[in-house]
C-alpha cells in the first residue's frame, strides 16, 4: 500500500481542508490528529486552521469553531438560496430511517456499527444525516475502540417533537407485546412502513 505522507505544511492544510469539507460533523483537534500517521502537534493544527480561516475569508464558506470542534459552513447570506434546493421534502421517512431512529431511541448510546449489526445491513450514509438534520439525534461521545466510532443518542428536541418528557414514555416492548395480544386490530397488522 502506498500511503503518501504529506510532504509539506501546504499538503497538511489540503488534507485538513478536504476532511473539514467532507464532514458535516464538527471535527475536534483529536479527530484531526487521527488523519495523519505521523504526530502533528495541536499548536500546528491550530495554526493551519487559522490559515484556512484566512484563505476562506471572502469566499462562499467559512471555517467556524463550535462546541465540539471546527467545521466549514455556508455563509449565512447563502442560506436562502440553499433552502430552495430542497423544497420538495419527502413526505415520509424510509423504513431504514425509522428503524435506525428506533434503535437509537431504545438502545442509546449506540454506534453506527451497533445499528448495522442489529439491522443486519450496511447503513446508507444519508440516514444519519437525515436524522441529524432533523435534530433528533446527535453524537454524545466516542466508544473507546479502534477508530473511536461516534456514539449516537436522541436529543431533547426529539423528546419535544414526540411530545414526551422522557424516554421512559416510549412504549416499552414488554407492554407492547401484551397490548398486541389484547387488541390485535387489523390496523396494527397491516401498517405499511
Amino acid at each position, binding site marked *: 500500500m502506498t500511503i503518501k505522507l504529506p510532504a509539506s505544511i501546504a499538503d497538511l492544510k489540503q488534507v485538513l481542508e478536504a476532511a473539514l469539507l*467532507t464532514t458535516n460533523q464538527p471535527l475536534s483537534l483529536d479527530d484531526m490528529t487521527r488523519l495523519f500517521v505521523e504526530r502533528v502537534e495541536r499548536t500546528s493544527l491550530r495554526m493551519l486552521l487559522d490559515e484556512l480561516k484566512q484563505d476562506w475569508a471572502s469566499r462562499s*464558506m467559512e471555517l467556524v469553531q463550535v462546541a465540539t470542534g471546527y467545521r466549514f459552513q*455556508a455563509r449565512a447570506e447563502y442560506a436562502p438560496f440553499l433552502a430552495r434546493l430542497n423544497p420538495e421534502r419527502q413526505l415520509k421517512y424510509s423504513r431504514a430511517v425509522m428503524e435506525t431512529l*428506533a434503535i437509537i431511541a431504545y438502545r442509546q448510546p449506540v454506534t453506527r456499527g451497533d445499528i448495522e449489526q442489529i439491522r443486519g445491513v450496511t447503513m446508507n450514509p444519508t440516514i444519519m444525516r437525515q436524522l441529524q438534520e432533523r435534530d433528533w439525534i446527535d453524537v454524545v461521545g*466516542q466508544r473507546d475502540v479502534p477508530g473511536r466510532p461516534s456514539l449516537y443518542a436522541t436529543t431533547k428536541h426529539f423528546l419535544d417533537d414526540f411530545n414526551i418528557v422522557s424516554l421512559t414514555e416510549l412504549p416499552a416492548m414488554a407492554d407492547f407485546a401484551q397490548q398486541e395480544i389484547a387488541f390485535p386490530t387489523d390496523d396494527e397488522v397491516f401498517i405499511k412502513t
Partner: protein
Amino acid sequence: MIDVPLQAKIKGEAFTELPQNLYIPPDALEVYLESFEGPLDLLLYLIRKHNLDILDIPMAELTRQYMVYVEKMQAIKLELAGDYLLMSAMLIEIKSRYLLPKPAEIETEQDPRADLVRRLMEYESIKLAAENLDGMAKVGNGITVASAYYQHISQVKPPEVSLDDLTEAWRNVLNRASHFKHHKVSRAELSVREHMSLILRQLQAEPVLEFWQVFDLADGIPKLVVCFLAILELAREGLLRITQQAAFSPIYLQINRHDD
C-alpha cells in the same frame, strides 16, 4: 493464515492423510472450503488449479476431485451441501452420458459438457467483474464527497412521525433480528439508557466530573438509583472511567479514552 488443527471426518472416521492430489495445507482446510462461493466456484478452482482445459474437461477426473471436496464439506459444514450435491448429480450425469457409447440416432447430439462449460465461463467472467467492481473507488470506500454544514431554513414541513410509527419501526427491527426475538425493553432499562446519554452529554461539556455532580438530589430516590445504574452500565460498556486516588477521596468520572 489461521492455525486450525484438522478435524475433518469422512464417513465417521477422522482422517489424517489428505488424498494425494489435493494440495491444501491441512491446517487451512476449513478456511479454504469456506472461501468457495458455491459449486461453480469450486469447479473453476479445480480446473485452474490442475491446468485442465476448460474447453475439453476430463469429466471423470473433475468429478472425482469434486466429490472429495464435497465429502469434506459435508464432514465440516453440512449446511453447505445443498447446492453442491445438486452439482454432484449433474457432474455424474454428464460423466455417464459422456462415457456411454452413443446410439447412432443421437450421434449429432451436442457435447454433454457444453452447458456446464458455458456456465463455468459465465461465472468466471462474473467473478472477475465482481473483483473489478470491488476494487473500484466508490463513495463510502475511496471517494469522499463534499458534505459541509449549512444552516437549514426549512420551507416545507418535514415528514410527520408519530410515536406509533416509531414503536412500529422498533417492533420490525425486533421481529427481524432473530437474536432479539425474546428481547424486551422495559421502562426501567429505557430510563437507564436515557441517563447514560445524559451523563455522556454532561461529560462533553465538562471533561471531568465529580461523582456527586451527576446526581441531582431533588430527583428523588428512584431517579438517583437509575442514575447510579447508568454510571455502572457506562463503565461496563467501557465508555466511562471511574477513578479515585485514595479511600474516601473524591471519585471522578471521565470519558474513557487511552490517548489522553
